[in-house]
């Protein structure tokens, strides 16, 4: 347990010292979202209709950015061997890395999402649900991303390959996250959608550690 917490603490302090990386992801998030009004026109009604979708799709794309370094940097520096040789179960250690990834890059993204939502004219009553959907949906993305990152360690075509692996598997999260916000706007109950998002998070929480550990073990051999 202490090894897992130590890894979480170390990765968080590294994230704190490399704030630039987080800021780059945030900048990408804001800039990419800003492109949509130029692409589809600034009419408030149209933007309001698609705002949720844009915020979520762009958040999904932004969450891909830090993945390439997640395990690849460990492999390049030699730290991956040390993680593999630690007495603690590898499944717990990779979970710590995903948790650090989520805290270090998804939380800041959630924090600025209201700004993006405002620019896209999201109806005011939907903000709470948007934040809830992001809070419940992004853990799944971090875990799925962790699987992709672990599978792609040592691969020749890094970032494009990661998108190819992660995006199709993330579609259910996208569907129900956007549906939650639209249910809120439409005056329907949002709880089923949010429960389902939490369910996805639990599902990936149980599956992802094993997939990541298996991928990293064979990457080192």
């Amino acid at each position, binding site marked *: 347990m202490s090894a897992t917490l130590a890894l979480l603490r170390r990765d968080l302090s590294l994230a704190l010292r490399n704030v630039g990386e987080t800021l780059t992801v945030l900048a990408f998030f804001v800039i990419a979202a800003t492109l949509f009004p130029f692409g589809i026109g600034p009419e408030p009604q149209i933007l309001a209709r698609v705002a949720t979708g844009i915020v979520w799709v762009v958040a999904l794309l932004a969450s891909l950015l830090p993945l390439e370094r997640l395990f690849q940097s460990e492999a390049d520096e030699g730290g991956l061997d040390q993680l593999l*040789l630690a007495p603690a179960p590898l499944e717990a250690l990779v979970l710590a890395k995903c948790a650090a990834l989520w805290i270090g890059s998804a939380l800041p993204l959630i924090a600025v999402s209201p700004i993006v939502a405002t620019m896209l004219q999201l109806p005011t009553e939907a903000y709470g649900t948007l934040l809830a959907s992001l809070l419940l949906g992004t853990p799944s993305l971090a875990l799925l991303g962790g699987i992709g990152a672990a599978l792609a360690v040592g691969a020749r075509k890094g970032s494009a390959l990661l998108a190819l692996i992660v995006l199709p598997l993330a579609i259910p999260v996208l569907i129900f996250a956007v549906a939650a916000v639209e249910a809120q706007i439409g005056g329907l109950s949002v709880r089923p959608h949010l429960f389902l998002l939490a369910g996805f998070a639990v599902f990936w929480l149980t599956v992802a550690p094993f997939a990541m550990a298996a991928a990293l073990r064979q990457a080192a051999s």
Partner: protein
Amino acid sequence: MTGESAAGLSGRELACMRGGRTVFAKLDFGFAPGDLVVLRGPNGAGKSSLLRVLAGLVAPAAGTLAWHGADIAEDPAGHRARLQYVGHLDALKANLTAREHLRFHAALRDMGARDVGGRDVEGHHIAHALDMFGLAKLADRPARFLSQGQKRRVALARLCVAPAALWLLDEPTNGLDAEGVACLAAAIADKREGGGIVVAATHLDFPGGQARTLTLRAAA
């Protein structure tokens, strides 16, 4: 040399394949407690591969590896807990200091849990390791400001922050100056005195006292 001692680390008919190619095969050995074994052989002979097999990072393609006579494939976690591995990479993060690296490593090796009676056992081990490798003055400098040799010292100082019965070192003297080599020699001598086994791959003269040599033939 084979079979007569069950104590320590022994290999029987070990073989290793990498990318469809046989790196080595039919390797038999027995390393006893207190042994320093130097792996020799030209580039590509499989020194690093053998170390990775000994560490359990790579499963042998054939044969068995045993600790005190018990197959390590039966208890991989137990094997991980008893060994320390220093690869040819230093495994350092540019933004972390030497002390932070050692503190993290101690926690990773599960040393944090052994704080008995409120004493900072971990801190004591770390200070000792820093001293051992002449890093006391550099302890709080981020790794990106360290020279190649100083980084190597930090990587090696990890060996001293957590107990292990088996050290596996891949070209440990790479980048070290004479003083650094002496530090390593002292650490190895200590380990051997305590009954530890040290296996090191190198192509240079190796410090650490009387050694046994395992020479791998070139596969080319």
